Each structure stands twice: as C-alpha cells, then as structure tokens.
C-alpha cells in the first residue's frame, strides 16, 4: 500500500466501518433505541448503495430522463424519511456512524 499525506487521507477518506452495529445492552430502553439505530443504519446503507449506483449509471450515461427523475425522486424521499425517523427516535447522524472502536493491528 502506498500513501501520501496520511493525516489528510484519514480526514478525507471515509472508511466504511459504520455499517457494523456495536453490541448493545439488555436494558429494554437501550435495546429499543439500539434496534432503531440498527434499522436506520441498514436503511442508510441501502440509501448510500442506491446513491452510488445512481451516480455510476449517470456517469455511464445510460439513464433515460424518466429514470433520472424517478431515481432522484426516490433518493430525495428516502433522505426525507430518514430525517423524520431520526427525529422520532432522537438519533443524530453521528449516532448512526457506529465505529469499530480503536483500531487494532492485524496479527
């Protein structure tokens, strides 16, 4: 692996650790929020996958005008729905960015 400017790379490159849920406690209140967080993380994953696909297809130039409208519209609606659900569950974007914790080296 070859890198340049590791500090800036770490800031700029978002590594996808965030789709992995942490272990949660058995406390029912926490469990409920934990489930909500998991479900929202999954939907966020789907949204990001969709967005990536849509952008890739736009790059390739193989989307009809109608498809562009439908995809864009669906992405907007997904984002809007995500926003509402985050509010309902009192979760922020940061809450959904679950990290794996301190980085451990490979043995």
């Amino acid at each position, binding site marked *: 692996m070859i890198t340049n400017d590791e500090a800036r790379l770490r800031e700029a490159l978002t590594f996808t650790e965030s789709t992995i*849920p942490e272990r949660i406690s058995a406390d029912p209140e926490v469990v409920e929020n934990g489930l909500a967080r998991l479900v929202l993380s999954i*939907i966020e994953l789907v949204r990001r*996958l969709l967005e990536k696909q849509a952008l890739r297809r736009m790059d390739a130039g193989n989307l009809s005008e109608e498809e562009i409208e*439908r995809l864009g519209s669906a992405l907007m609606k997904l984002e809007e729905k995500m926003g509402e659900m985050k509010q309902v569950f009192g979760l922020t974007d940061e809450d959904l960015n679950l990290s794996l914790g301190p980085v*451990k080296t490979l043995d």
Partner: protein
Amino acid sequence: MNDQSAEDLSLLETLDHLLDRGVVISGEAVISIGDVDLLYLGLNIVLANVDAIVRTARRT
C-alpha cells in the same frame, strides 16, 4: 509517516474493501446485534425497483 499509522491505515483500507465492496446477491444479509441475528430482507430490492424502497420507507 510512522509504522503504526501506516498499519492503521492499511487495516482501515482492508476493512473498507471487505465491508463496502463486492457483489450484492439478492436475498438476505444476516446482520447481528449482540447475540441476536436479525435477518434483513431488503437487500434484494437494491437490485430491483426503486419505488419499492420508498413504499417500504413510507410504511415504517
């Protein structure tokens, strides 16, 4: 660049490739939380109709 930071970055990159790449096969991805497996049925619709996702999002 020190050795530790290079190793960290290498690990992050490895995990990024593991978690964010690869073909998505339609069907279930088994996601776990604590000791409980939650089957997520939704990944097949990434490959299919976008509208279905919006309808699902509206129902929840």
